């Protein structure tokens, strides 16, 4: 493959040794899980609204090309300019060309995971444009020059003390305080000036409605409304799977999204944008651009099973419930999307050569599948990607990149041994006699004994003991 693979094993080992990080995640995830459970306490309602949500997403996927064309037509009719980008480079270039045309120097951003996928902030900075995150969590992460560690709560890896130190260190004239209200107010004062001064606002899209050409955004802070209302130009970036067919499809998906994500019956704001400022209107952007990004999604869509990855509504519940994510945290994944959904989405986007390790960051416990509000078979896809990684093929980028002759031979030997009674008896007999003498440093065995005790072999095999009791060999 020639690509350098990202080392999840190494990063997660480091994360596991950070007690503060583990405590921060443990506390946050426990809270989120129990609060979410309260929101869906009525199992009849949960089953019904979940089935409805899944049907909305599947219906959208069943007509995806037609709905995207309809979205484009209706947005265009409403005055929203639609752009298409096959790659993140193209999407960045589109955003930059709009910025350069309006001579933009300062951008305020609402939360957008697609813009993380694009590494948009770094890209804009290279071109001399200040790009400021305005969601409080994203703002904290940006001050810290880090990546979000969770798709809903970007700064969840930090506690108040750490944020207090960060503000003191990075914000001019900031006094040290651990009072959350005061920290929040400080960010408010700084960011309101920026909203008023910004040339362009950038946002993501939670859902785009094909029927009406409407962009829906949910948020609690008001920074999303600020970013999409105050600056003269608004650019929305979305993954191409975010379309739904009808306006009436929005309420069930929002209900599942906000309850699953943060255990709220609804967010403070549901912001539905259908057009730029019309004649006579006194505020709102004069231009709205919608950038529809592919970045590997059309390839995911081509496979009947993997396509289910695109149902995702980005609620983050799978991370909150994942025994791996809650222990290693989001940064170990080194990806815009961590946790279970990231472990199936990122390898498909970036290739199994670079990301083939991620589908193994899973115990297959099924917790994510049980709480997924749109019923994505995450664990099945995880298994499929593990197989794709060792079998050359063209369903997934980088398929076969992790194929190993040694591993293939071991499996072949295992299968032959189990297919032949003679070979099986010989092998188990040999292990009973010599297994305990094998040094822990043997290749392959070392992978196991590095972190676990070597199993002790019994002196006599089960077959041997059974024979003694008078049970004959078949």
């Amino acid at each position, binding site marked *: 493959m020639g690509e350098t693979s990202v080392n999840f094993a190494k990063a997660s080992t480091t994360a596991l040794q950070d007690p503060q990080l583990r405590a921060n995640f443990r506390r946050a995830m426990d809270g989120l899980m129990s609060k979410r459970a309260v929101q869906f306490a009525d199992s009849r309602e949960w089953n019904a609204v979940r089935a409805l949500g899944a049907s909305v997403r*599947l219906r959208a*996927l069943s007509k995806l090309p037609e709905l995207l064309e309809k979205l484009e037509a209706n947005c265009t009719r409403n005055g929203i300019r639609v752009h298409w980008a096959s790659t993140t480079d193209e999407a960045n270039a589109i955003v930059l060309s709009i910025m350069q045309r309006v001579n933009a120097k300062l951008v305020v951003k609402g939360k957008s995971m697609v813009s993380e996928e694009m590494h948009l902030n770094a890209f804009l900075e290279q071109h001399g444009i200040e790009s400021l995150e305005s969601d409080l969590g994203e703002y904290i992460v940006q001050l810290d020059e880090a990546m979000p560690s969770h798709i809903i709560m970007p700064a969840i890896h930090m506690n108040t003390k750490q944020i207090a130190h960060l503000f003191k260190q990075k914000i001019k004239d900031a006094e040290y305080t651990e009072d959350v209200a005061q920290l929040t107010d400080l960010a408010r004062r700084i960011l309101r000036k920026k909203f008023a001064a910004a040339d362009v606002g950038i946002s993501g899209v939670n859902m785009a409605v094909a029927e009406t050409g409407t962009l829906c955004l949910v948020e*609690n802070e008001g920074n999303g409304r600020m970013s999409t209302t105050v600056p003269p130009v608004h650019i929305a970036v979305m993954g191409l799977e975010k379309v739904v067919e009808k*306006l*009436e499809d*929005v*309420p069930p998906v*929002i209900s599942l999204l906000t309850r699953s994500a943060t255990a709220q019956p609804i967010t403070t704001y549901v912001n539905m944008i259908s057009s730029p400022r019309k004649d006579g209107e006194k505020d*709102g952007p004069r231009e709205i651009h919608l950038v529809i990004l592919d970045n590997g999604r059309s390839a995911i869509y*081509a496979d009947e099973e993997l396509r289910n990855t695109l149902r995702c509504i980005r609620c983050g519940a799978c991370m909150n419930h994942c025994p791996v994510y809650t222990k290693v945290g989001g940064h170990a994944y080194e990806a815009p999307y961590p946790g279970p959904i990231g472990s199936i989405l990122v390898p498909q986007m970036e290739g199994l050569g670079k990301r083939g390790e991620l589908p193994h960051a899973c115990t297959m416990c099924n917790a994510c599948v049980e709480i997924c509000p749109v019923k994505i078979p995450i664990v099945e896809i995880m298994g499929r990607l593990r197989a794709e990684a060792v079998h050359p093929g063209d369903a997934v980028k980088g398929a076969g990149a992790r194929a190993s002759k040694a591993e293939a031979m071991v499996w072949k030997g295992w299968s032959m041994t189990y297919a032949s009674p003679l070979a099986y008896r010989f092998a188990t007999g040999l292990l009973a006699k010599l297994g305990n003498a094998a040094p822990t440093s043997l290749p392959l065995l070392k992978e196991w004994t590095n972190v676990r005790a070597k199993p002790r072999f019994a002196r006599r095999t089960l077959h041997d003991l059974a024979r003694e009791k008078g049970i004959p060999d078949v």
Partner: protein
Amino acid sequence: MSEARPTDSRNAILGKLRAGRDAHPLTPPESDFTVLRDKRWAPSERLDRIKTMMEAVHTEFLETTEADWPTAVQDFLKAQGTRTLLYGTATEAGQRIAAAWADGGPDLVPYDGPVETFKERLFDGIDAGITTTLGAIADTGSLIVWPTPEEPRLMSLVPHMHVALLHADQLYDTFWQAMTENRWADGMPTNALLISGPSKTADIEQTLAYGVHGPKRLVVVVIR
């Protein structure tokens, strides 16, 4: 970086999606909206539920009548020490306010020009903004707000306090009911909003803090 060619990308993306779908068509299950259709509250329960849900996220309520509300609003704001109130002059509500407003504050500030002409004042010199609503939703405790040329979008966002007028007979069970009964899909406005409380965040260690970017206070004036 190569120059992005939007038309090529558009056709390539749609072509790939079409080929992928046509090779493996997908039959989705029926969308059964019964779960939303059946969410109902007795008319007498709706307002109580709205109040309970919105108060849980720090919304304040003021009860008044059709005849008295402008005076009730002024008395309330005066007691809060509000110095300036942004309002829309051209709405019926705005005209009622202007007619009933007595001396002694707060000062009425009309939103009567494009935002570019008074952005600085809007961000720095306005304590409160008052808007009408199209009703409220019992299921989630949400106000329905459609900004208009007379009541622009930033009135309910930038001032530190948002005062929202709610007629007690304009209550819906669910968001879904409000949008289907009123046929929103036939013509969406520039911006449609659900507002369910003052601005808030829990981004610092899951600790709730109110008034992060939008209004610090939301006051719902219930008019009977």
